[in-house]
C-alpha cells in the first residue's frame, strides 16, 4: 500500500526548490549566447525570443566584423527577405564579408530600439531603423505601459531603464541574477521545454501574417488603422527626442553609419492616410536626418510596390517583392558604407 510519507513531502519541496535553482544556474546570459534561438521559441513566429537570442549572439561576434543591424516593426520585417539575401548582396557590393541581422519584431517600439542598440552596438556596425509617421504619432508612454512590467525581450539595459524613468515609471528592480531579472520572459516560455524532446521550432518569421484582406474587409481594416493613428502633434516631439537619444547612444559607441527607412505602404490606401500628418512627418524626419548627419530613405517608389504585393495596408506578402525590396535596401546600405556620406533621398 502507498502511504504518504513525511520524507517524501520534504523531498518534494527539495525537488521543486532544486528546479528553481537549476533555472537560475542554467538560464544565464552565456546560455543565451550558446543556444539556438529555435530552442527558446514557443512557436514559429515567437519573434521576441528570436530577437533576444540573436541579440545575445551578436555580443559574441568579433567587434571588427562589419554587422548590419536592422530594427523595425512587422511591416519592415515582412518587406525583407532572409538575412542571407541582404548579406550576399552587401558583401558582394562592398567586397568584404558582412553580417546582416534583422532584429525587427511586430510592434517593436522606439524604447525597444534604444534597448537593442544599447545591448548590441559596436563601432563597425551599420544601423538601419524603420520609422514611419504612425510610429512617431504613436507610442506615448501610455501605450508602452503594459510592457514596463513584462518587457518583451529577455534583457534589460540602461537605455531601457532610462526611458522608463523619463516616462515616469519606476526603474525595474535588479537583483543581478539574469533569470530572476528576466523572470517573466522565461515564465512565458515555459512550454519551450517541449523543444528538448520534440526538437527546435521551425522558425518562420512571416508566420503571423493573415491571408490577404478580401475586398469587403478593407473599409473596416482602414477604419481601425486610422483610429489607431496617434496624435502626431502631441507625441512627435517626445518620440523624436527618444530617436535623438538613440542616435547619441550609437555615436557614443562609435557607430558611424545610421540610416532611417520609411516602411512600405500599400498604394491602394495611401490617399486615405492623414496627408497633413504624413507631410509634417516627412519634413520633420528629413530635418532630423540632416541635423544628425544620418541617411533617410524611402524605397516604395524605387521598388515600385503595387496593391497586389500586400496583405493589408503595410505588410508585403509576395516573396519576389521582398527580394526586390531587400536588393534596393542592400544597394543603399552598400553605397552608404562605401562613401560614408549620409544620403537623404526620396
Amino acid at each position, binding site marked *: 500500500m502507498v502511504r504518504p510519507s513525511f520524507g517524501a513531502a520534504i523531498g518534494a519541496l527539495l525537488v521543486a526548490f532544486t528546479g528553481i535553482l537549476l533555472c537560475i544556474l542554467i538560464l544565464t546570459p552565456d546560455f543565451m549566447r550558446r543556444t539556438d534561438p529555435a530552442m527558446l521559441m514557443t512557436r514559429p513566429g515567437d519573434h521576441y525570443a528570436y530577437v533576444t537570442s540573436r541579440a545575445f549572439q551578436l555580443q559574441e561576434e568579433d567587434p571588427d566584423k562589419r554587422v548590419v543591424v536592422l530594427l523595425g516593426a512587422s511591416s519592415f520585417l515582412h518587406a525583407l527577405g532572409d538575412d542571407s539575401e541582404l548579406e550576399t548582396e552587401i558583401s558582394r557590393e562592398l567586397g568584404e564579408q558582412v553580417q546582416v541581422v534583422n532584429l525587427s519584431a511586430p510592434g517593436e517600439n522606439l524604447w525597444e530600439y534604444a534597448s537593442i542598440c544599447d545591448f548590441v552596438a559596436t563601432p563597425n556596425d551599420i544601423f538601419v531603423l524603420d520609422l514611419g509617421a504612425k510610429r512617431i504619432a504613436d507610442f506615448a508612454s501610455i501605450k508602452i505601459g503594459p510592457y514596463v512590467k513584462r518587457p518583451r525581450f529577455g534583457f534589460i539595459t540602461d537605455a531601457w531603464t532610462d526611458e522608463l524613468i523619463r516616462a515616469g515609471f519606476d526603474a525595474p528592480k535588479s537583483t543581478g541574477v539574469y533569470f530572476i531579472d528576466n523572470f517573466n520572459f522565461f*515564465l512565458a516560455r*515555459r512550454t519551450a521545454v517541449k523543444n528538448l524532446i520534440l526538437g527546435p521550432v521551425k522558425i518562420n518569421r512571416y508566420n503571423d501574417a493573415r491571408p490577404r484582406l478580401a475586398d469587403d474587409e478593407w473599409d473596416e481594416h482602414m477604419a481601425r488603422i486610422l483610429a489607431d493613428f496617434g496624435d502626431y502633434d502631441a507625441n512627435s516631439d517626445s518620440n523624436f527626442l527618444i530617436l535623438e537619444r538613440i542616435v547619441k547612444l550609437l555615436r557614443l559607441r562609435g557607430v558611424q553609419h545610421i540610416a532611417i527607412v520609411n516602411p512600405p505602404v500599400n498604394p491602394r490606401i495611401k490617399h486615405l492616410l492623414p496627408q497633413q500628418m504624413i507631410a509634417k512627418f516627412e519634413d520633420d524626419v528629413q530635418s532630423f536626418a540632416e541635423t544628425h548627419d544620418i541617411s533617410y530613405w524611402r524605397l516604395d517608389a524605387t521598388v515600385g510596390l503595387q496593391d497586389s504585393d500586400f496583405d493589408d495596408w503595410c505588410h508585403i506578402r509576395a516573396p519576389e517583392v521582398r527580394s526586390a525590396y531587400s536588393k534596393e535596401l542592400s544597394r543603399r546600405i552598400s553605397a552608404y558604407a562605401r562613401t560614408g556620406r549620409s544620403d537623404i533621398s526620396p
Partner: protein
Amino acid sequence: MKRTIARILGSTIQALVLGILLFVAIANLVSLSTGATVFRYQGF
C-alpha cells in the same frame, strides 16, 4: 533491510513526482498572477 530500501525508493519516487508537479504548479500559478504570456501582435 529489504523493507527499508523499498521505503526509501518509494519516498524518493513520491518526492520526485510531487516535486516536479509542485514546480510546474508554482510556475503556472505565478504566470497566472503576473500575466506572463508570449506577446502576440494584434495589428494584423
